[in-house]
């Protein structure tokens, strides 16, 4: 087999894996959009906040220590304990639920029935707020996140492929774990939204706030629910990306990688997020490999994802799996 082809296969596989990581972030967006028609600009920052909180809890950091020290002249930093990863994840999930409740209580409930752009704007405010809060709470230094996920080349795949092709493929263990977790998340979320009464209510709220209110669906409850779910998904994404690149501000920028995925897959579709992620992942890696790096001098990933999404959208304006836009007069 020609070398280029083997490389292309390796790139494709890695692209698929990268796509799953994008999809994890996109999933959080989809959940909230589906349930409330809100384009949650703060999703990336939520992932950052979740990851920071997780690390903070694990390391026994004193929250707001910086502020406390500045005001009271104290010298607090650590509680001096160390909490196992699993327990810390549970605690952080609790914090994310609390955050969801706050979002509902202080933001969403005051904005029932407002047009999408206004809700979008509220999430911008939220993003600013959370960014400031996470820094103030945990400090803006980079933190190391290690919840025990395996990382590095998967030797088994390396060996197997080496025996077949004479060239061992590189697949990152972390990506494999991410793929499994993403698959689990997607299946359970889909089942939830399709087959449970809360799931149905979520979709109803997305269609028409007022009507949902009128049949007795408590928007407050649904919103706490979806924001909690989105918070949990953000935590998962935060763990994956944080393990990869450390926990610090830039983590929130992964949202930018999720946007083209979202648009390509459709804002409202959970499977769309996954399929979109895979297409973008593979597309941008292959493009960089075959065209970008050799002919354009590389670093094409950022815009290529968007251009790819754009091309798809021209043919399917609601995204691959998005709900058909009902246009009637």
């Amino acid at each position, binding site marked *: 087999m020609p070398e280029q082809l083997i490389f292309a296969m390796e790139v494709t596989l890695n692209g698929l894996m990268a796509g799953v990581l994008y999809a994890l972030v996109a999933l959080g967006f989809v959940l909230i959009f589906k349930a409330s028609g809100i384009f949650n600009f703060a999703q990336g920052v939520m992932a950052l906040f979740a990851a920071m909180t997780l690390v903070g809890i694990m390391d026994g950091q004193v929250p707001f220590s*910086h502020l406390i020290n500045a005001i009271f002249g104290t010298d607090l930093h650590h509680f001096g304990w160390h909490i196992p990863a699993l327990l810390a994840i549970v605690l952080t999930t609790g914090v994310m639920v609390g955050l969801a409740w706050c979002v509902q209580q202080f933001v969403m409930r005051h904005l029932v029935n*407002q047009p999408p752009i206004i809700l979008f704007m509220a999430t911008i405010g939220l993003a600013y707020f959370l*960014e*400031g*809060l996470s820094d103030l709470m945990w400090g803006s230094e980079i933190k190391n996140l290690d919840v025990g996920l395996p990382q590095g080349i998967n030797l088994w795949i390396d060996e197997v492929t080496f025996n077949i092709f004479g060239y061992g493929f590189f697949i990152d263990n972390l990506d494999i774990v991410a793929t499994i977790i993403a698959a689990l998340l997607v299946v359970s979320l889909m089942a939830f939204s399709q087959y449970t009464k809360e799931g149905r209510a979520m979709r109803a709220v997305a269609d028409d706030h007022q009507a949902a209110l009128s049949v007795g669906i408590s928007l407050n409850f649904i919103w706490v629910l979806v924001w909690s779910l989105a918070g949990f998904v953000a935590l998962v994404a935060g763990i994956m990306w944080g393990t990869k690149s450390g926990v610090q501000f830039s983590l929130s920028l992964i949202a930018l990688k999720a946007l083209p995925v979202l*648009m390509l897959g459709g*804002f409202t579709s959970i499977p769309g997020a996954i399929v979109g992620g895979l297409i973008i992942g593979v597309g941008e890696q292959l493009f960089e490999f075959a065209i970008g790096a050799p002919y354009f001098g590389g670093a094409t990933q950022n815009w290529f994802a*968007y251009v790819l*999404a*754009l091309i798809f959208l021209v043919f399917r304006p609601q995204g691959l799996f998005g709900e058909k836009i009902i246009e009637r007069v």
Partner: protein
Amino acid sequence: MFYREAGDFKTSYIDDGQTFPIRFDRYRFYAVLAVAFLVVPFIVGDYTANAILLPFLIYAIAAIGLNILTGYCGQVSLGTGGFMAVGAYACYKLMTAFPEVSIFIHVILSGGVTAAVGVLFGLPSLRIKGFYLAVATLAAQFFLVWLFNRVPWFYNYSASGQISAPEREVFGVAVTGPHTEAWATYLFCLVFCLGTGLVARNLTRGTLGRSWMAIRDMDIAAEIIGVNPLRAKLTAFAVSSFFVGIAGALFFAVYLGAVEVGEVFGIQKSFLVLFMIIIGGLGSIFGSFAGAAFLVLLPVILKLVGVNLLGFPTDIVAHFQLIIVGSLIILFLVLEPHGIARLWNVTREKLRLWPFPH
């Protein structure tokens, strides 16, 4: 008390269609203009000009531009940073290629170049709507930044990859380059700001503005009653990019003087300008100014208060700044979802009725 329509009769449709139909508003506008042109230049210092007034004026131009596209025509754009970069680089190329031509013309031409690019990236808007359209504009954002970074021709093959504005003069007074006076740069930007404001106002109160708003409010119905969506959307993209391009040119040439594209015209800039119009008020020229003022001034004020008055460490102040700006945005929304402009209008309506509650 003075704020009344009553007794302020219009005798012609021309009077009725003017920019400030209420006399009090009109006089106030003239007063602001007089102060801006006749008083401020004599008292403005480096700090006020470079840290507050220039960014305010330039962002206001960009915000007006984006507001035309997003607020008036309903097309969400996240490509403002990229389009500003087009304006900046066009201006740089023009300034260095034709040094004898007036910078004034260069800035306007930069707007023209940006308008052309804007139309190109506006084409997908015919099929793609709403948040999905953001993808087209984001593609523009990332692609343009990449392009300006990639192709050395754009930065005249300089070793640093940065572009720096050479010195140019208007009426013998330097407005770009190192030896500028605060008042000169301020006036230069003010003229553009006023010009774009008036043009935007003219366009939005007339035929074109109505076809934009029709498309925004209900595009299908608009098409059925006779609005050509292609034309409406593309003109919106063109006009909007024109303004944004001018803002980009001024941002580079007059305000910063040197620019590295990814850092200055990145996606953050797109979001910043979008936030301005959303906070100021979509579909309102006044809102564009208000939003620009809000997001330029608020951080500065918070910083001055936090660091200089209260003496907090700078990083804590910076974190609080984010928290406060975020909370204020949310608070504004809860109180008045349609931005500062609407808040202002409601206050005005109450004033008009005053002292009666309804």
